[in-house]
């Protein structure tokens, strides 16, 4: 299957890249405990048998889009809502949950400030903003933490994307392999 270079894919991958630029994030989260919905070889796709080494686990979900196909005469804009789902497997609020929460928020604002010039679509900056929406900290929500005991969180944020309408209409997105 060919890889896609559409703006949503660029943003999804860019968020992971942002997290990996943070050494403290890498201290807490092992590569194999990231649930990335990318390609055939999705790393650790929601393991069913969880051991201590599989936690904390973090997943990046897309929750959907809001937007305006004709935001202006030439532009289309989208608010793409993403969520970090963090499952700690621990009841330690101060040493596991809050530092990871802080690290995620730190990377959100760094992504907001640093990503726009570094990721282009059709030679144009297309990431126009990142807005923090909501963070739910949970001790028991089987939908979020798949029944794993301990703190989990669901941190939602929007990435504001603007592309030229003509590029949405005409630009091919599949990368030749």
């Amino acid at each position, binding site marked *: 299957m060919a890889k896609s270079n559409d703006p949503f894919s660029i943003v999804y991958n860019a968020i992971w890249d942002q997290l990996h630029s943070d050494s403290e994030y890498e201290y807490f989260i092992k590569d194999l405990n990231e649930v990335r919905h990318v390609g055939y070889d999705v790393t650790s796709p929601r393991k069913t048998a969880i051991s201590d080494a599989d936690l904390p686990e973090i997943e990046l979900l897309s929750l959907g889009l809001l937007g*305006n*196909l*004709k*935001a*202006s*005469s*030439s*532009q289309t804009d989208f608010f793409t809502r993403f969520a970090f789902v963090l499952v700690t497997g621990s009841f330690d609020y101060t040493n596991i949950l809050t530092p990871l929460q802080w690290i995620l928020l730190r990377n959100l604002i760094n992504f907001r400030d640093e990503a726009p010039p570094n990721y282009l679509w059709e030679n144009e900056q297309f990431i*126009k*903003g990142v*807005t923090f929406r909501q963070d739910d900290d949970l001790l028991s929500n089987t939908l979020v933490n798949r029944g794993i005991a301990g703190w989990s969180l669901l941190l939602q944020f929007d990435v504001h994307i*603007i592309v*030229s309408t003509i590029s949405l209409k005409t630009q091919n997105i599949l990368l030749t392999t």
Partner: protein
Amino acid sequence: MATFSGRFGTILGIGTVRNWNLNANMNLIEVRASNTKQGAHRKKGVFEWSGSYAAFGGKPAFLPGEKFALELYTHPDSGTTAGDPGKKFNSSGNAIVDEVVITWNFSDTGETIISHTVSFSGEDDLSCTSASSSPDDAPVDAPSVCGASILYEAINPTPIALTAIPAVTQAVLTLTSNNIVRIDSGTIITASANSIIAGTDSACARKFLEGVKEWGLAISRNDNTFYADLGAEGVYELKVSTATNDRWLLKWGMVSEFSNYTVDIENDELISHTTNVAMQALLTTDLDPDNLGQVVKPGDAGTATHWWGKSD
């Protein structure tokens, strides 16, 4: 007295009407004299009436300076069935259009239908009468959504080929005619049972002549440019689309104002600004009347019927 909603309202000959309103003014003249004992006594002055209607679409049925027989229908008396007998406002004279405002709005959520407002003044009397039936709505001019572009072509000093202005969030085209009012003492309005003008006095009516014409275009944009595209010195031909290959042609325009450059940090909004373009009848470097401009309604290109300017 029954109270109705406006849902069955119509205007004869005009489709896709969103709303209409009407004002009548008697211009009462105040008199205080020895015999009024300091009280205000009033006599009827010149009777005038005016109103407006809003409709969808980018091609108004009437343009500024044009007269038309106005029939405004309120609501059928039955309260339930469109077309039943009801009330209407009309005049033995005409309405004349003072101003038309057409709005293209891209920035609302989703695409927005182009709409316009027509403001008019009336001549002669105004009556509210019973209508045996309210008219069927005029054939619907399927309204265009904003999906079209605003194009400009620079004429002078630096020629630029026809180009689309990017990132336009809203365009507002205003066409006006400062119509000449003539008070017609020969047309004395008399009172009647159904007339708006009650009482036994009489009043003079207004008459109109088509007046001075003007247009202005305000273009709001989301971008970080200053006097880009439409510069401060240039003379431009503008084309504002109502649909594919269906455009208002505005020849020529000059930028009159560059305003509302807004950088909203608090709400993290997109940078925005507005450029106002004003009518320019002749090219600045060439005052030859052969170079008179045009204002052409969509669909009128190639015809002799133009709102203003040279025929094709």
